[in-house]
């Protein structure tokens, strides 16, 4: 089930916006495609453009780039993923978050899909 209240990209990232700060992760659909994550290359704090490469997720047989759903400044990364990359699989919408972005234009969220639209998107993909 795709959680309500988050926004989604066609690259299978989600973003949850609270007080102008977006928390970013990958969707359940994405983590299933990737297989068990063995390593997360986390971003460094600093400015990031929308759709720019943010992080890399590696499994034993695949690698996947994570793109920034919206522009802003990375202010925090999920350091727990350094020792427990499997959180991306196990709790992709909660403890498996990747980073937090202080959004430069929170209104740009209108470019993203809501839960219903994303659900329809992955059904058709």
């Amino acid at each position, binding site marked *: 089930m795709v959680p309500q209240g988050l926004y989604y990209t066609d690259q299978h990232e989600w973003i949850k916006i609270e007080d102008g700060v977006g928390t970013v992760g990958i969707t359940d659909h994405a983590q299933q495609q990737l*297989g*068990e994550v*063995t*390593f997360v290359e986390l971003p460094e704090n600093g400015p990031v453009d929308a759709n720019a490469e943010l992080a890399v997720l*590696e*499994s*034993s*047989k695949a690698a996947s780039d994570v793109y920034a759903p919206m522009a802003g400044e990375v202010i925090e990364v999920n350091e727990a993923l350094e020792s427990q*990359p499997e959180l991306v699989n196990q709790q992709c919408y909660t403890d498996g978050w990747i980073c937090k972005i202080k959004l430069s234009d929170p209104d740009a969220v209108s470019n993203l899909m809501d839960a219903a639209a994303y659900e329809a998107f992955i059904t058709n993909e």
Partner: protein
Amino acid sequence: MKLIFEKSQKGRTGILPGESDIKESFELDSSLMRSEPLDLCELSELDVVRHFTNLSKKNFGVDDNFYSLGSCTMKYNPKVTELIASCGGFANIHPLMPQLRGGGILTQGALGVLYEMDLMLREIAGMDAFTLQPLAGAHGELTGMMIMAAYHKKQGNHKTHVLVPDSAHGTNPASAAIAGYDVKVVPGNEDGVMDLDAFREMVNEETAGVMLTCPNTLGIFNPHIKEICDIIHSVDGLAYYDGANLNAITGRARPGDFGFDIVHFNLHKTFATPHGGGGPGSGPVGVVEKLTKFLPISVVVKRNDGTYAVEYDREDSIGYIAPFYGNFGIILRAYVYILMLGAKGLRRVSENAVVNANYIKSRLEEYYDFPYKGLCKHECVLSASRQAKNGVHAIDIAKALIDRGFHPPTIYFPTTVPEAMMIEPTETESKETIDAFIDAMIDIAKQAETNPESFKAMPKTTPVSRLDETKAAKVLDLACTGCE
């Protein structure tokens, strides 16, 4: 099996150089020496020979049985080429000899092999000159892309990207990127080849070139190949031919005649040199006349007096891409192989490679899905998606084949086919062997219907069962540096 370090016995010695015939002792200054004494292992010669003999028994080679690994052309490696390459007259020559005044004349045999190989490869590929320097196929690709870049620079062209079809080997985009180009991916069409209209639309003044294999990784010959080359030439782009699949057409069609400007061979594939557990290979690059001046240094030339020499001063050359003249030992083996086959033999190679692949496809079509119908060339790609519905995936079929004594096909490549299994029989396998392989595949397909659960425990006949690759990537035990 224990690691070699775990077998070490303190105080045991193996092969020593013997006592020096020079009595004066010599010591380096202690500040320059390693602080800890060397800690490799201490074993007898027999210990070492047994260790590696036992390790070798845990391997599967072409000499064991059919090695169906698609795209790798695992044909028989003639023993005679091994014998010749190990003879002292070739194995013991120092590569700097031709650079000494008076040294070139003492390496005429080796230089002659390089010179003649260049001529023979020109003939087989339809190109105007070759460099034998690239040390592997991917190295050849990079060399080719550097030649492409040098050409555009000389022409004053502003080129930013290279086009690559979606089914290409990963080395193609990686090589183009390392040569400084952006990579744009061209989709395939329902016939399994690069979509001509999409390609035409993507080509523009900033297109440096296109990298293609033909037949492609699905084993399909693109009927529009000449048109593709013409389109790329219309923007002064260059057409690059990845020779990974040359075994399909060797002796009967030449990339140069299709319109390609740069070609690389994989000598270890097409010309039967041993794959060595992952290398060494050799990836000579051929070019058309207008590109010959960009070839890397050094170049072997024949002088008027009939002797061979190495040339270094070439103004427009892309420079050194490797220290010497390529993987000479591999080039030599391929040279001998071509000499033994001749032009007629090469035609028979491609014919038998193609018969074998189509025969496999034809007999398996009832049991597996083949996403692309019709004729294939030297390899065929099936999809195990029918079996996957029962929970038996390409990897499970691969493991089942291992238990039946065959090396599995390449799996999950090309990525454009779900549950892909890529089978390349080569010309050196006989109908009996291929029939046995087909029978095993049919048997597996039936078992996937009747007992899909049984696959999870396969393989059962090997020294180890399925290995935990996720653990390997997380724990990262990459070296034993003090484990005995």
